[in-house]
């Protein structure tokens, strides 16, 4: 049966096999087939960044303390990671991806989602594209990878992991329930040890068994996240492949119970969201230059509007002024109102490194102090404990 139009096979997940170790083996063929461990020193407190499949046979896996790896596999060859080099190889891999689609969302140096919908007529279907990419990565870069092809991100990632290394697994819409059923519940995104224990206590080990629970039951067990689990266990996932430059952002959004038409109320909500976004930006030590306002209308049409500031900021007020300007000048609020509003900061850098201006500009220091105080109070008393006065009128 051909895939239905609503759930075409269009998402690829490409996951490099033992990436760092494979690159090292490629660079030094004498390492091939031998246990190679890329990571910190076994003597110090380093951890394993990557282990070749030969090393994995000894029970070595990534994130394991290097000392422990050395005990498990004393004759392993330890190599210090060369992240910049691996990053440059990732660039080459992405260049291959770009021959097929611009919709590439890298998750790290060694894995990425690709959305190839709409490319079929030109390049063939997703399965053909996936095969081609896997071959080209092997031929041109001499690196092994595993590929998953599915109608959505969750299934594609699951698929690429099923037959590693050199795996190629397709999960079509009509097979998804069957494939998911026997898999352990821990395969679902976000099911960690605690959740697993709770499911086990309820006698639910596999994804198939989880489907016996109603949405309400899952919600009562896991809160709002229960709803996500309900859908994931049925192989349903509607998240989009977000290209990298958009993914490097921090944002908050809120959905209204009923559509909102009042711009003033939207501005108030926006301030709260900006406060959340900016607090998170500050917590993670980022500074960003691009402020994005996202609005979803009552009919689910979605628009985003962005503005790039002169210099990076992490200050609530600066972000808010930009977001409010976007709301007032770049967005038309229809009569039927708005379903969702969100604000994000992107174009992020890690260092503030703010070059001072001889002739003024916004008083950075004062803003930093206010932000720090607000952050403290909210940490202590919760996010509604303090709000900025009169801002929505400014």
């Amino acid at each position: 049966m051909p895939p239905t139009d609503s759930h075409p096979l269009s998402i690829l997940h490409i996951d490099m096999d033992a990436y760092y170790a494979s690159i090292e083996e490629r660079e030094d063929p004498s390492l091939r087939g031998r246990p190679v461990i890329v990571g910190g020193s076994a003597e110090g407190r380093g951890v394993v960044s990557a282990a070749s499949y030969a090393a994995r046979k000894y029970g070595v896996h990534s994130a394991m303390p290097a000392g422990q790896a050395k005990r498990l596999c004393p004759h392993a060859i330890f190599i210090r990671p060369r992240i910049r080099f691996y990053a440059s190889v990732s660039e080459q891999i992405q260049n291959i991806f770009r021959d097929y689609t611009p919709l590439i969302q890298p998750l790290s140096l060694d894995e990425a989602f690709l959305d190839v919908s709409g490319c079929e007529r030109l390049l063939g279907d997703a399965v053909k594209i996936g095969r081609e990419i896997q071959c080209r990565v092997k031929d041109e870069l001499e690196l092994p990878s595993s590929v998953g092809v599915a109608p959505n991100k969750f299934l594609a990632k699951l698929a690429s992991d099923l037959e590693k290394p050199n795996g190629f697994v397709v999960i079509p819409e009509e097979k998804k329930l069957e494939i998911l059923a026997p898999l352990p519940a821990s395969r679902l995104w976000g099911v960690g040890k605690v959740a697993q224990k709770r499911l086990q206590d309820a006698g639910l080990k596999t994804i198939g068994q989880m489907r016996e629970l109603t949405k309400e039951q899952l919600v009562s067990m896991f809160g709002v996240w229960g709803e996500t689990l309900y859908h994931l266990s049925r192989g349903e996932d509607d998240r989009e492949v977000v290209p990298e430059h958009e993914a490097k952002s921090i944002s908050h959004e809120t959905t209204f119970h009923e559509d909102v038409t009042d711009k003033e109320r939207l501005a108030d909500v926006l301030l709260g969201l900006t406060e959340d976004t900016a607090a998170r930006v500050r917590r993670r030590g980022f500074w960003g230059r691009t402020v994005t306002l996202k609005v979803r209308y009552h009919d689910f049409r979605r628009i985003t509007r962005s503005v790039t500031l002169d210099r990076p900021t992490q200050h609530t007020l600066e972000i808010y002024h930009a977001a409010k300007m976007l709301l007032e000048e770049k967005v038309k609020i229809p009569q039927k109102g708005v379903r969702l509003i969100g604000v994000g900061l992107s174009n992020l850098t890690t260092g503030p490194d703010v070059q001072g201006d001889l002739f003024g500009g916004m008083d950075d220091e004062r803003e930093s102090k206010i932000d720090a105080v607000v952050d403290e109070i909210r940490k202590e008393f919760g996010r509604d404990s303090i709000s900025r006065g009169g801002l929505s009128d400014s």
Partner: protein
Amino acid sequence: MATKTVTTAKWRADRRELLEALSHVASIVPAKSPKPILQNVMLTAMENQLQLAATDLDVSISYNMDRVEVHRPGTVVVYAHKLLNIIQELTAQHVDFEVVESMLRVDADKSTFRVVMDDTSEFPTLPEFPAKDEFQVPKDVFATMIKRTEFAAAREQARYSFNGILFHFAKSKLDLVATDGKRLAWARAKVSNRKKIDVNVIVPAKGFSLLSKVVRDDDEKIGLSVTDNQILARTKRAKVSCRLIEGQFPSYEEVVPKDCDKAFTFSTDELLSKLRQSHIMTDQESRAVRFTFEPNLLRFSSQAVNVGESKIEMVIDYGGEEFEVAFNPEYLIEPLKILGEETIVLKLKDQDTPGILEVGDAYVYIVMPIKTM
């Protein structure tokens, strides 16, 4: 009007002299322009002189070179960068020019070029130097002041006044000031002012920069005159005119910190060397070099996530308490490398106050620190 002016010009020029003249003149010719005629240079052969002229409408130059044998006078207009390319690549000592069949024929040794000419009547008329109201400034002083300020001006900033050099001449004080908002360079000199000139105008930085390059050893004075919207400068060989930038120059005197209580005298070369070293380990995202002052020790440190880090130390004479301040090293390297002074004084207060480089009373350079956390 469409008929091309018929000319029969013919001359011979010394290649090196011509190359120098043409390089100066072509430096203001835009690579791209909505007015293609501006991409040309106008060559006028007169009695034993060749005049080269170009303009981008903001800045215009005409440059007279001698060591030319003019056989027949005349004027031609040709594509400036092509002609420059030709003169650069030739190796002969002399180059011969002659208009033949509406093309400019360029001959040297065994090379022959035939260059398309544009209509001379289309070429804009350059501003005339007014006979009166001219005043003079000493060449050496003025050229040095330009060199010490022009690099600090912004390039294509939305605040137009930042793209210029403030020229302020009153009583016997001459000041040139340029800033891009992050740093400010201020050169000062005492210059006799018998004509009681009082001008305060903003000049495109590239115009003054060009002027400082065309002056030669035998120029003692530079003649200047200021009209409503132009400043004209004259040396023995060149006339440079610049359209003034309208707008308010920022109040530069106010941003000079008055309370920098820590003064350090450095060997310019040593400071420059340390800064260049620290500069290596910076990038677009982490531009700062941190200066840490400890008793008798100054440490420069820089680090950029994608590049690496550096620690560079230097023994200094300092007995005060430890403090830190961070700067974009480029903003200090630039002035240090052109100052031509053996020693330089750096004045600081704290991590938020601008730093000051000083050369006696002649030069003040203020740079805003970078805030790192």
